């Protein structure tokens, strides 16, 4: 297990390095001269040249990349153009909001997805199964921001149960609808996978043996099939995380939650390039780490993976 952990960790390194290269390329690709942006429109040509030299823009690209990485490592970054605040502080604050949204949605998605999957696997072919599968395939197809708007229209406007807009830190009620919207969409994929995985396990010999020894249908399902069906489900949950983060961006803009998505969107509007790209790099780094964690979990659940 230790060797596997180490091998996978080493495999993450080139990916993280390439992520940095992509981030650097994006900074360079963005339209506009950074020197002109720093000085404003009235700067003279000489001032511009001096600023370019100060920022290292006259040096070869590899050297610029080295400076970029060094500044990143030392957290020596320009302030946000739009708000004048430190970028790490901005990203950290926004991440906490997105994290709450993502965890809440994950909870909804797992509870609902697993529930639907268990119901389907307990009574396959029944009208309940049909209903659960229809809900699941419809859920995979709904745009999350549309569902978010529908929920807002019904549960904040028609029936004013939940607050409309304006995020207040500490007030969890403004997170209920966003988590519900995102969680409903992601429960659908999970329901499909858990149903398929559970049904597959139920056909195995050990489940038949357990039934023959007198275990109830629910007993076999929960005690025998479920633990083994967890392996594909964890994989799907991990791969859904990218979708969850993307969905969080769209959901945040509908509900006005000041998370990473809102931060990136504001940065696009204000052409705040460093905020935008650092937020993107941050998301990518989180994603690499989570994927690593999922692989570790996977190897822990299924020892065969370690020797593959």
């Amino acid at each position, binding site marked *: 297990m230790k060797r596997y952990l180490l091998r996978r960790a080493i495999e993450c390194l080139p990916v993280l390095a390439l992520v940095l290269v992509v981030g650097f390329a994006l900074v360079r690709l963005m339209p506009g001269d950074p020197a002109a942006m720093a000085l404003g429109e009235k700067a003279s040509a000489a001032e511009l040249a001096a600023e370019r030299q100060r920022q290292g823009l006259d040096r070869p690209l590899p050297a610029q990349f080295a400076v970029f990485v060094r500044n990143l490592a030392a957290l020596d970054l320009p302030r946000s153009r739009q708000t004048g605040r430190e970028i790490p502080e901005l990203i950290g604050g926004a991440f906490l909001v997105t994290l709450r949204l993502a965890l809440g949605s994950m909870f909804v998605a797992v509870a609902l997805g697993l529930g639907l999957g268990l119901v389907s696997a307990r009574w396959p072919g029944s009208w309940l199964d049909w209903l659960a599968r229809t809900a699941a395939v419809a859920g995979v197809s709904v745009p999350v921001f549309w569902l978010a708007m529908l929920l807002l229209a019904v549960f904040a406007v028609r029936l004013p149960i939940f607050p409309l807009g304006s995020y207040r830190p500490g007030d969890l009620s403004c997170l209920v609808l966003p988590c519900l919207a995102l969680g409903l969409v992601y429960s659908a994929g999970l329901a499909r996978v858990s149903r398929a995985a559970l049904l597959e396990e139920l056909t195995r010999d050990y489940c038949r043996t357990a039934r023959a020894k007198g275990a109830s249908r629910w007993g076999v399902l929960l005690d025998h099939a479920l633990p083994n069906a967890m392996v594909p489900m964890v994989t799907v949950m991990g791969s859904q995380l990218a979708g969850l983060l993307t969905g969080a*961006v769209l959901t945040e803009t509908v509900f006005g939650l000041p998370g990473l998505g809102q931060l990136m969107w504001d940065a696009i509007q204000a052409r705040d390039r460093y905020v935008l790209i650092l937020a993107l790099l941050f998301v990518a780094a989180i994603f690499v780490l989570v994927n690593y964690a999922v692989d570790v979990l996977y190897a822990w659940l299924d020892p065969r993976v370690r020797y593959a």
Partner: protein
Amino acid sequence: MPEGGARSGLSRFRANRLAVGGLALVAALALASLAGPPILWAVTPTHTTYQTQFPGEELSPPSAAHPLGTDRLGFDVLARLLWGGMSSLLIALAATAIALVIALAVGLTAGYAGGWIDAALMRLTDTFFAFPSILLAMVLVAAVDRPSEGGWLPAAGKSMILLFVALGATGWTGLARLIRAQVLTVRGAEYVNAARALGLSPARIALRHVLPNCLGPVAVAATLAVGSNLLGEAGLSFLGLGVVPPFPSWGSMLNDSRAFFAECPWLMAFPGLAITLAVLGFNLAGDGLRDALDPRTASGGAR
């Protein structure tokens, strides 16, 4: 039930009512989006284009004259929905085509060449996989200046190209991994060894012998990818990064409806429904294709 063979695959697909329904749904929406605008034009000359305004009828609810109501600028929602379908479907299909080309190049090369080439290409794939596709596409679209009029292509056309290139260039990683995995399972097969023994070039073996035998799962994944690209286009347009107005797309219609979502629910109901139905169609067709190609999953998915 007879096992194997293309015929039984086709009959399995046909027997899957949901899959056929999905295909019909896709066909109906595509037909409506392509043929709808000219038909509307012929039937009611006042509905000529997506830009025909009806002064004094702004934000009117569905009625006989405007079956799906009108929007903030007095545009007929039905007309815009049909034109918008054209742009949404075109962008999703083109993005999938681009993603498929990249994925085929990367996946085939990595899987067939193996060794350090495989390792390098897969780390590259991991890197792009680490950026959530739509977020990266969002940054790419935002990095380029908003398309303007001028040149041989209208701004709407330029923004469409930008959209499907961004979606395609960021959405290929899953497909590439799948293709590589398929190639790895086929690579050691006897007919591939035979082709190698005959002295065929690696490119010819990869394209003529390995590729055709990997196509089944790839076709399934590509069908599902069209659905997710539709959602991607809608998401980017919803963020205001979509097709340049006044040309409509389903996502930008939803974006326009945001300010009125409480008072004028028809503005958001119909584009959202259209997106959902189209994605549903592609998902059902993809699932059906999977069951048809792999009878093992069909037994698990018995109706």
